[in-house]
């Protein structure tokens, strides 16, 4: 079966510090990968998605970047955090090929607080 891991679960970082959140998927190959941010416990905003190694699409201009150095690894980064980067970050994967009806499968998220 497939599993998705995100770490860390919680993170408190000062303004101006760098960020690296990691997500890995097991049990599948060549998945689509996604980073979402959830602010104030409600709406989800798609930040980045990737359909393959080194292929990153950004949905909104922001202080963050993403990378996919390996097939099942997705990293969210920032060089200098802003207060507005605080939120709940969710990684997700979906199967390619039949992705019309493939649901997204989410990790347990990272709660980031920028102080």
């Amino acid at each position, binding site marked *: 079966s497939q599993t998705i891991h995100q770490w860390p679960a919680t993170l408190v970082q000062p303004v101006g510090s760098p960020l690296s959140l990691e997500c890995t998927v097991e049990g599948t190959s060549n998945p689509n990968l996604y980073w979402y941010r959830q602010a104030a416990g*409600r709406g*989800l905003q*798609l930040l980045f*998605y990737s359909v393959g190694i080194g292929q990153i699409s950004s949905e909104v201009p922001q202080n963050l970047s993403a990378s996919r150095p390996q097939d099942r690894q997705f990293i969210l980064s920032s060089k200098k955090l802003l207060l507005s980067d605080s939120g709940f970050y*969710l990684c997700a994967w979906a199967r*390619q090929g039949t992705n*019309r009806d493939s649901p*997204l499968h989410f990790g347990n*998220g990272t709660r980031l607080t920028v102080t």
Partner: protein
Amino acid sequence: AQSVAQPEDQVNVAEGNPLTVKCTYSVSGNPYLFWYVQYPNRGLQFLLKYITGDNLVKGSYGFEAEFNKSQTSFHLKKPSALVSDSALYFCAVRDVAGVYNQGGKLIFGQGTELSVKP
């Protein structure tokens, strides 16, 4: 552009009563619709999906959803609510305009907080 709307921020139901969480959608072409549930400080869990076929879709934990094309709705239902159903519920639509070149991303509604009281 594809979009979904969840008109209720919160739904309150007594345990044992039926529940409905509403969702309406706007798509160009055929809709691909999903429901998710989120418990506090956790990721989203997939409940069910509508792609084509029967308008009543059955999913996990006794939930079902009714697709209505004329009303562009996809309401989540359960015949008898449990206290443990209390959570945040999200409706989502697949951005099918970009299925083949934009990673099949999902667009989510703002969520509905379901509260089931004993």
